[in-house]
């Protein structure tokens, strides 16, 4: 039943061109265009200068988009269209008699997750490709420092970033179902995300590092720092804790959305 609901939801979502572009396509497009511009500028300025950089450092930058509140605004457009669209168009009446409510919400969530993953992957692959081209132009193909452990850390950071975006999508789902409003489903999670990022700037996250891992944005940032191997990076135990925290937030948000929808009267949609 979940598989069928997922196929139906994906079919509809892929045909809703506007939200599909603004929700998931605009971010890679804008960020890759920006990266390309920067790389061309750097290539022109640093002709022939070797630029060996750790691969992990390069690879983690694009996936950090998953924790950016501006990127969250775009993802909120995509997620809100999925979760609040059927209230806006009053089309729950078409779907609810055909599948379990839990399956319908979970299917929407999986479609969101798939499209966010695709969006992040395009951003990641595009950035790597642009940096590689830039490397060729500036240093004639200087190598990237990498090893198996670095690749593993990047993969873990990518998973954490996806979970961070997933938890945000779950939050959008909860707001969309509770408010039945597309606008609220976009704005409230975005403002919350922005508020958390600004709040973290004012807090001394290092002072209570373990506790701060409970904040998804901080957990995602910490994971990416760990993957990039920064000076203040935490250990593998901290990375595992951050990953668990993000997974827990995702599970709680999804479960809350399913529970809310399961108990909701659709006398009006």
């Amino acid at each position, binding site marked *: 039943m979940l598989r069928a609901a997922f196929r139906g*939801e994906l079919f509809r979502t892929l045909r809703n061109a506007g939200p599909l572009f603004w929700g998931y396509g605009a971010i890679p497009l804008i960020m890759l265009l920006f990266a390309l511009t920067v790389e061309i500028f750097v290539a022109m300025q640093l002709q022939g200068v070797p630029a060996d950089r750790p691969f992990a450092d390069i690879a983690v930058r694009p996936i950090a988009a998953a924790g950016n509140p501006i990127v969250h605004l775009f993802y909120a457009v995509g997620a809100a269209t999925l979760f609040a669209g059927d209230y806006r168009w009053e089309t729950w009446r078409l*779907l609810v008699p055909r599948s379990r409510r839990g399956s319908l919400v979970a299917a929407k969530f999986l479609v969101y997750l798939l499209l966010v993953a695709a969006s992040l992957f395009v951003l990641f692959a595009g950035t790597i490709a642009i940096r590689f081209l830039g490397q060729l132009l500036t240093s004639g193909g200087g190598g990237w420092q990498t090893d198996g452990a670095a690749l593993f850390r990047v993969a873990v950071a990518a998973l954490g970033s996806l979970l961070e975006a997933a938890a945000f999508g779950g939050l959008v789902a909860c707001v969309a179902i509770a408010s039945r409003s597309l606008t609220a489903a976009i704005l409230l999670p975005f403002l919350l995300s922005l508020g958390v990022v600004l709040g973290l700037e004012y807090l001394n996250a290092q002072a209570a590092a373990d506790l701060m891992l409970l904040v998804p944005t901080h957990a995602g940032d910490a994971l990416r720092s760990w993957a990039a191997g920064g000076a203040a990076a935490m250990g593998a135990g901290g990375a595992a804790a951050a990953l668990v925290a993000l997974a827990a937030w995702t599970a709680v948000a999804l479960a809350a959305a399913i529970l809310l929808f399961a*108990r909701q009267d659709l006398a009006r949609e």
Partner: protein
Amino acid sequence: MQGAVEVRGLSKRYGAVHALRDLELTVPRGGVFGLLGPNGAGKSTLLRIAMGMVRPSSGDIRVLGEPLHARTYGRIGGFIESPRFHPFLTGAETLDSLALTAGVARRTGELLERVELSDAADLRVDGYSLGMKQRLAIAGALIGAPELIVLDEPLNGLDPAGIIEMRSLIRSLGAQEGVTVLFSSHLLDEVERVCDRIAILNRGRLVREGRVSDLLAARATLRLRVSPIEAALAVVGGKAARNGDHVRVEIAEEEAPALIAALCAAGIAVYEAAWERPNLEALFLEETA
């Protein structure tokens, strides 16, 4: 055999508003069952509960023999109130997406042909007229092989030719083996033509239920043109009432020959005797006034 829909003590409250009050109703399997009632009678609430969109406040409802929480999806098709669709999809894509969601085989071409929308299959739904949307909604209701088809106001927005076609379609659905059509409409003349049985709701309660022919026959009166009228009234007694130049008698059909014989035996001239049967509109107004 269990009914297609069995409702026992069903109530639904929206705050202070009682949409349904202790409703008892059985919709038998097979045929077309009409649900009538004025605005706010609780028809749409009952249909929304049957389709799993609204949870009852109390009471029990079984659809196709199963409680709602355990129902087999795909055995119910239909639409509630005005049809709504994802505006960015075409008619064909709408049916495809619903079939995918239900996990059943796509029969898009066949269904669009059945509701005569083949020519508009590739047009976006937001460009459809209301009548086209009604047809598409009915095509959507037929996705899979539903045993219960809920059609809430399916004739709204249709032109006369469309109503005739839709009436024929609904009748043919109701005639299929094992298929029950639960049909709600304010077009009482159409309900009378299409439905085998009806239930009339008023203020959340069932006020009348039964076969259309039985409900109307029970209210039939014998109209007599006789002379002298006073003598006829005396012979018939309390069952008769004068109505202008004729007498109306409330008796069962089988009592009519004996009554006419008695009038003739009393020397009363009987010029005309005819049964007058009220239509559904009269019954509806009487029950919901």
